[in-house]
């Protein structure tokens, strides 16, 4: 078995979800190669423990799906499994690859039972399915929260150029608005502090920053908070946002809809602050505090300042 993992584009580093995908590949077994789009990140990928080879593909710096899928299809004959993290990039590219190979993609794999048998959540995390594929090449994305990432250092893989693949020329990159990260990345953070509709406005939402700074935490949001414009879309946690599994997740003024829980209920410790003691979020919280966020957040910031 030889497995190819498509790496997220993450500048000179390798994203944590990519390292989780490498961990999933190692659970499947066999030799693991990593494919990097663009020159950045190849050296970091070569340092991942247990990676035998890094392939570098020049020319598709924005990871456009059409040329990326063409490249993966060209590489596919050498591999039993093609993996990618379940990031926006992985989800954009891998189903396209699968269809070109006439196989059914397996999205968001949460467990490896064997080389052809995998576990994944369905219905917003309310059910866990074990599926066995009959396809020759297995194409899948990996739910990062379900696999402890491999270490960032320790390996020394060979770096080779990937063969050139043809760009179908039907799409082009126009521009991007990517927020500069002042905090840990949501899916990689050890602590996540999230706000919901209760925050009331974009200005009020900012009071979470004080607590996040004290804890070295990333900031997340419910869909209601994002839709109302209190927080940018990339902060959304849930079924259709990011899936996080930090050591500590603190939900401020979030009711606990199943779609939100789908994105955070694997967190090790969950804290909920809500003024409604009946809020469903308390059913999954290890520590619940019934109270007003506007009172609790400043108090918490002050308390965390004391040692």
């Amino acid at each position, binding site marked *: 078995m030889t497995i190819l993992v498509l790496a997220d584009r993450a500048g000179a580093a390798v994203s944590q979800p990519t390292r989780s995908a490498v961990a999933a590949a190692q659970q499947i077994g066999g030799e693991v190669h990593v494919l990097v789009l663009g020159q950045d990140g190849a050296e970091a990928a070569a340092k991942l423990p247990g990676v035998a080879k890094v392939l570098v593909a020049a020319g598709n710096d924005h990871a456009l*799906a059409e040329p990326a*899928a063409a490249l993966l299809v060209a590489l596919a004959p050498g591999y039993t499994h093609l993996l990618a993290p379940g990031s*926006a*990039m992985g*989800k*954009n*590219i891998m*189903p*396209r*690859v*699968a*269809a*070109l190979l006439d196989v*059914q*993609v397996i*999205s968001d794999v949460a467990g490896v039972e064997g080389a052809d*048998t995998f576990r994944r*959540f*369905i*219905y*917003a995390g*309310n*059910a*866990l*399915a*074990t*599926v*066995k*594929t*009959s396809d020759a090449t297995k194409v899948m994305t990996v739910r990062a929260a379900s696999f402890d990432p491999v270490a960032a250092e320790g390996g020394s893989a060979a770096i080779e150029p990937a063969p050139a693949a043809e760009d*179908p020329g*039907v*799409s082009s*990159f*126009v*521009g*991007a*608005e990517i*927020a500069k990260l002042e905090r840990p990345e949501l*899916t990689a953070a050890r*602590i996540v502090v999230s706000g919901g509709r209760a925050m009331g406005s974009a200005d009020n939402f900012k009071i979470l920053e004080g607590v996040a700074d004290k*804890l070295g935490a990333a900031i997340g949001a419910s869909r209601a908070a*994002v839709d109302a414009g209190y927080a940018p*879309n*990339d902060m959304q946690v849930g*079924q*259709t946002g*990011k899936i996080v599994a930090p050591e*500590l997740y603190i939900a401020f003024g979030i009711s606990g809809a199943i779609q939100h829980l789908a994105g955070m209920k694997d967190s*090790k*410790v969950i804290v909920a602050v809500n003024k409604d003691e009946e809020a469903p979020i*308390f059913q*999954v*919280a*290890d*520590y*619940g505090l019934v109270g007003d966020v506007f009172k609790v957040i400043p108090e*918490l910031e002050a*308390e*965390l300042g004391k040692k």
Partner: protein
Amino acid sequence: MKILVPVKRVVDYNVKVRVKADGTGVETANVKMSMNPFDEIAVEEAVRLKEKGTATEIVAVSIGPAAAQEQIRTALAMGADRGILVEHDGIVEPLAVAKMLKALVAKESPQLVLMGKQAIDDDMNATGQMLAALLGWPQGTFASKVEVADGIKVTREVDGGLETVALKLPAIVTADLRLNEPRYASLPNIMKARKKPIETVKPADLGVDPAPRLTVLKVEEPPKRQAGVKVGSVQELVEKLRTEAKVI
């Protein structure tokens, strides 16, 4: 420009689904069914393009049981012009759905297929990308803004923010949550929708074998979290996080 909008019949998003005791799937008997929420957004976007004069005709397609007619009717009531039901009982995976849609695209020649990014039952997030692959068309996935000009410009929700791509037409666009807010169909439009035509075909008519590639070995209830304790104050909370949970 003609637009094809695939709409899936799924368990309503408000239903708390229950896993069947025999581990073969989830309970769907006597459960409220609706149009997949992302597909409502896709229909809405298509209707807006028609209202702007960009689109000329909207065809809603569903692959599913006879009852999926209801979801096609909903699309018609929102403003789609006609419907096609590919009648099939049982699970159809994204690959098979994409193959059937490809056959319908060959018949209907739309310039744009606007669909949901994800079905909230299988949570696959795959069909649009797969259809684009089979057709050799470009894809604008997770769209939060769509501008049709020469080709089509799609703003996409990606990790860390937004990205805009330009696609040649014909193209596939998959809708994310913030593309728009779908309208409620008015009563007169619901009445009008009853007279709009729905054609029914079978997978075999489209030359597609709907057999799944994945065998579901079992479906289980995920591990349940136990509700913990309520704390009385911020001080107590911090104390517990430091000494009991040891996470800060």
